[in-house]
């Protein structure tokens, strides 16, 4: 059996990174992001990356770390509002951004992973997002054509994995991870728990092992919270 489990993020990235490559990353905001692999990418020194990710992290966490070290040339995202370093580099012309509406971005990843090079959506019709893209009329409504995304590498965060690479996500940390896992030519997953073969019910697998080539135990599980909103326990 091919061994998918690697000892460290550095070992899992070995031979998988090169300057100018495209990397898709799971996560929404700072939730469900592959913290361990992002740190390893920082250490790898790889440059001129195109990163496909819904968000760009914050200044000192998540993908923000790769921005701070200026390893990123272009982002494909739906929202990058939480990151001042991003703004500085963008305004200086050092960083390119391609905005994709959030649902369109999610679908572009799924399409790329499922061998669908393009699909039509109403999202963005008549807006700047549709400029330069083909449109078509179906049953009297206008739709814009969007392209599937296939990346050189996908990095995802999951809650549990078995040695076959079957992944289970936890709650809203699932977000973009399942699609990201499908659209990398190589996919590396970091997981909070590595469990024995058979420990995951076959009906509960979110990402089947076929999509995961390499696997590590996550060593960074900080899970920083962006908006800690609470209510009083007494009011409950």
């Amino acid at each position, binding site marked *: 059996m091919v061994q998918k489990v690697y000892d460290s993020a550095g070992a899992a990235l070995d031979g998988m990174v090169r300057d100018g490559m495209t990397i898709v990353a799971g996560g929404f905001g700072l939730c469900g992001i592959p913290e361990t692999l992002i740190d390893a990418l920082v250490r790898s020194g790889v440059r001129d990356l195109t990163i496909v990710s819904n968000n760009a992290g914050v200044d000192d966490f998540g993908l923000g770390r790769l921005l701070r070290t200026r390893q990123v040339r272009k982002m494909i995202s739906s929202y990058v509002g939480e990151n001042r370093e991003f703004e500085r580099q963008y305004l200086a012309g050092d960083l390119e951004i391609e905005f994709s*509406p*959030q649902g369109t971005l999610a679908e572009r990843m799924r399409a790329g992973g499922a061998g669908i090079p393009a699909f039509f959506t109403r999202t*963005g019709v008549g807006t700047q997002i549709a400029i330069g893209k083909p449109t078509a009329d179906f049953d009297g409504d206008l739709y814009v054509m969007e392209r599937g995304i296939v990346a050189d590498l996908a990095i995802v965060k999951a809650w549990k994995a078995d040695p076959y690479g079957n992944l289970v*996500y936890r709650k809203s940390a699932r*977000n973009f991870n399942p699609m990201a896992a499908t659209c990398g030519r190589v996919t590396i997953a970091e997981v909070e728990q590595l469990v024995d073969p058979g420990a995951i019910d076959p009906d509960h697998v979110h990402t089947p092992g076929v999509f995961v080539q390499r696997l590590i135990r996550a060593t960074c599980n900080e899970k920083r919270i962006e908006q800690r909103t609470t209510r009083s326990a007494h009011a409950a």
Partner: protein
Amino acid sequence: MSWTRDQMAARAAQELRDGYYVNLGIGIPTLVANHVAPDIDITLQSENGILGLGAFPTEAEVDPDIINAGKQTVTELDRTSYVSSADSFGMIRGGHIQLSVLGAMEVAENGDLANWMVPGKMVKGPGGAMDLVAGVRRIIVLMDHLDKAGSPKFRRACTLPLTGTNVVDMVITNLAVFERPDRASPFRLIERAPGVTLDRVRDATEAHFEVSPA
């Protein structure tokens, strides 16, 4: 007099129907959840991948793996399911969410909506707003009637880059409520805040609108 934000949210909550699946935008729209009538059961959707959003957690309940589309910590309910963002936007794009309440910078009389960028300012990106206005069956905008400079936000045409074209069904401001029965019809003024005259609404509105009762 004009309506407070809570009163605007309460007015939007009157549009809810039993059994609705609803997506509430970030900001004032989230207040709508506080005004749901006791005999109405709705399910809130969060586009990152939660169907069945609960309230904010107590300190003890805070779970970094349960956040809403505003990246706020939330809780789950006995009806909750988690899905991928692709499946979540499948619900939205596929017309399975009955109602969305969103904020806006500008709304045009033809139903165009602008709420994602101001030229010259740093662009943060559309997030899920374009998907919501394109996919959700009914869109209610909650916004101040005038912007900070005192200019009308309900306009003949949007001056800002659009989020969607011909997507707004109802506009609730601090002064008035405008509605249209379908997207081929003009907006009609159906309610005014207490003490707000029709003339005041006309003065503060650039968009053409009908008045009901005529």
